[in-house]
């Protein structure tokens, strides 16, 4: 494997890593939104007396 090929692989890996980081961020965000939704549903139920 030449030095140029290593750099080319690095360029592709940079893009892949960015995508993976983005997927993790989205997963964390979805988890937070689900938690907030559950909390608000609970709040609405308590206000409704159920």
């Amino acid at each position, binding site marked *: 494997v030449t030095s140029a090929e290593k750099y080319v692989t690095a*360029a592709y890996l940079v893009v892949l890593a960015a995508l993976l980081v983005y997927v993790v961020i989205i997963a964390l965000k979805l988890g937070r939104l689900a938690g907030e939704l559950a909390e608000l549903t609970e709040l609405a139920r308590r206000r409704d007396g159920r």
Partner: protein
Amino acid sequence: VALSAAAVLLLVGGFGLGAFWVPEAEGDPAFRIFYVHVPVAITAYACFGWGAWKALRLLWTGDLAHDLASYTAVHIGTIFGVLTLATGSIWAKITWGHWWLWSERQLVLFLILFLFYSAYFMLRFSIDPGPRRASISAVYALLGVALIPVSFLAIRLAEGLIHPVVFTREGPQMTGDIFTTFLVCLAGTLSLAAALYSNELLGKRIDARLRELRELLA
């Protein structure tokens, strides 16, 4: 889901074509960065352009829904801007032997464009949410789009260039197989940006609705 699937198929297909279909003899191994660097850069421009279009729609119609769309487009464009700088820097290291060259106007202008849009977030979050923030952000996003043609044309206006020019008035300066592979990669990257944009926008809209609901229940 359809956009994400299209992005995965096109990107895997494009990178596969670049790795196995285009003969090695047509270019040095470093040229394969072309299939990721150029589509990513064009996608960054497209995202900033889309953000400006949404900003214009906001200023034109006064509909605040366009504010979130413009912000999301700038957000995704900035991510692609980082990737453009990173992949370009790696390509520069192989070809020129330097990670960065301040004498290259194309590079410096792209960096200015990137920093300009990075400052967008500082401006946006320094103002309280509401119509004022939406209008100021929209004007800023519109100003930024003026830098795109300057950045894009800088390569043609500059003298003594070492940054390659592959798209000229005579058409793309590459063989048919390289151009086909490039188009597949570009379609894949644009689909990827569209998928990220849709997901991000949906997430931000749900976030805003939840905040509204929280205020109503408080």
